[in-house]
């Protein structure tokens, strides 16, 4: 069985570092990315089992980014993390789209639980061809 690959996009180094530390302890292959633009570049060459995205980042917000990626690579799985659910529309979008969400700060157990759940859960696929993501094919 292949290692599950996870991409973490967050502008805060301590969060990236924390995620890497926790997830690698459970044998996940973790790629870290400090900005959205770099994240998109990485996605061009590699596919991931899960992408963890922070909402509030200096360049853009994580929700828009996840939408953009979803469009490009349908079936991609996400875990949204945030220290703060405001402004209001974010919380509503998350609830409405039934996105996987984990509030910061989290303990290692909480993150692992959320990641497992997000990977197992079927992606919200709207496309008729329920084919696996590009990442899966590459694997």
């Amino acid at each position, binding site marked *: 069985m292949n290692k599950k690959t996870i991409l973490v996009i967050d502008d805060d180094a301590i969060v990236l570092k924390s995620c890497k*530390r926790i997830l690698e302890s459970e044998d996940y292959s973790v790629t870290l990315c400090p900005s959205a633009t770099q994240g998109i570049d990485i996605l061009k060459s590699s596919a991931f089992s899960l992408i963890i995205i922070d909402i509030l980042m200096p360049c853009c917000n994580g929700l828009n980014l996840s939408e953009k990626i979803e469009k490009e690579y349908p079936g991609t799985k996400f875990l949204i993390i945030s220290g703060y*659910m405001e402004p209001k529309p974010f919380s509503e979008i998350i609830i409405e789209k039934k996105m996987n969400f984990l509030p*910061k700060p*989290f303990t290692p157990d909480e993150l692992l639980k959320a990641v497992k759940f997000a990977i197992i859960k079927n992606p919200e696929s709207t496309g008729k061809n329920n084919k696996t993501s590009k990442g899966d094919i590459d694997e």
Partner: protein
Amino acid sequence: MNHNIRLYLITSLLGLTIMVAGISLFFGTYQINKAVISEAKNRIGFDLRTTIKIYSNIEKQINSSLSLTALDQGWGDCVNGYNVQHIKKRLSDLSEIIGLDFSGFVRNDSTTICRQSGYNTTSPDPVINPVAKIVLKKKVTISGTFILTQEEIRAEDPKLADLSAINLINSSENNQQNIKQETSCLTIVTAVPVYENNLFLGVIYGGIILNNSTSIVDTVRETVFQNETFNGQNVGTVTIFLNNLRVSTNVLTKSGARAVGTLLSQEVEKKVLIEGETWIDRAFILNDWNISAYQGIEDYYGKTVGILSVGVIESKYAQFKKDTFFVFVVISIAGILIAVLLGFILSRLVLKPVDELINISKKVSEGDLSPKIKKISKGEIGNLQSTFLNMIDTLRVRDLHQKEESEKQLIMTQKQASVGRLAAGVAHEINNPLTGVLTFTYMLLRRDDLDEEMKSDLETIANATNRVKDIVKGLLNFSRQVKLNPEPSDINTIIKETIELIENQALIKRIRINFDADKNIPSKILDSSQFQSVVMNMIINAIDATDPGGRISVSTRINLSTKGTKHKEIEIIIADNGSGIAPEQLDKLFDPFFTTKEVGKGTGLGLAVSLGIVEHHGGTISVESQPGEGSSFTIHLPLDHNNE
């Protein structure tokens, strides 16, 4: 509305004036008509009597002149010497003075020896004047009105007979008769016996013919009516009738000729000629309406043989009536104009303060409480004005109070908002490093090679970090737009369940909780779990503030809104007899992180979060407190619209 009052006032006054003017116009005109007619009748009656007097004076004048002439000396010589010329001279002198139409002398042998006209007296004529004939027999003076036949006149003077004949004019078919010419003649005749030395010598007689005569009627008109004219027409007319025939008159026909030969109306004829009454009334004479008076003329034998009549054309009075009516109309119109003017002025006077009040009301309703009433009127309007001023004053005070309240509220809200933003920002920034601390603390704790002391230290770090996590979470809850999950809920039930949850906690502290529920409170749409957390938080606060053995009373009721609107609201009052709150702390009570509790026992966010939740439900929380006596927190919640 204002215009309506003005219109109403003016219309009322106008209506009243028109009514009064109309009534006075009607009755005034009626009264004046009556007065004018009655005055006209009185006057015409008087004129008739004057005419009769003049008529009888003419008769008397003839009588006295003839009587005086009869007393003259020398009649014997004249008669015996058959000096006809001398008699004729005397007769013509007499005639010249009093204007006789005919006269003559009848000798005691029943012959007429002299006539004024000189007709048929070249020798003694056996034809004798009928009046003289009576005197010849009775030998006393006879004087009066007589009807003489044409033959009898012809005997005096054939020319007279022709002149006095009257051609009938058929003015009315009812009176159409076969006679085409009236030959009888109405005359005034006097015959006086002539004596000398007690010897009866004969009879001197003389008279005037009224047929076709103008002198009497015109004299009378001149005397009585002074030839007054109206619209070029003589106002008064005088007529002498022979029976029902006009024989002498100054009434004119349409062609402008004297209306001799026309007949009297049957109605008047019946009244005057047959019943012998005096008749005074309106009468249509030939062309015009007249006010006329008629009285019969009796002849020497006491028989009514003719009528004397005077008339005044009614149009003269009609004009007078018209003038009077016009004056009345002018007065009425003036009255109406005055009424309108008065109505306008009055309404202005009355409505000016009302207008002012309306304008001020408008300003007040727009929120401007500054207007003052310039002048306080007397009476009811004044009362209204003062009441209104009082109301404005009260409003002003309330407004000021409300302003202070809302300013306080605003400062509070701004404070909370800024604190909220700050908290949110801080929380976000703290959360990332907290993630790191938590991650690495827990990762360290996973290691198997830790000694007990190190493990204990790491657990302390984890616990402390979790506390920080809780505080940040609380802060976020406070600053976050709480997502409500509203549903129709029964507030009393929520409170009851909340009290049940914490009753044990209270009992441990020997504190009793009373709940006095108002059964009339309708269900309200709210987030029951959040609302429960508010009630719970406040009861816990009350328990914490109350010493053992104390009491907490929770009650609900419906009250008028404190916001100054007319709306009603639900009040939930949580009162304790605990330590109370110092006045300087009241302001800070709802500030985040403000707490009177020991460190670690409270985050200082409970009331701030509670207020946030209540405010999201459109309500507010107020506090009253007396240090040492207890505090009372009231949650004010607006009624749902369908319950208002």
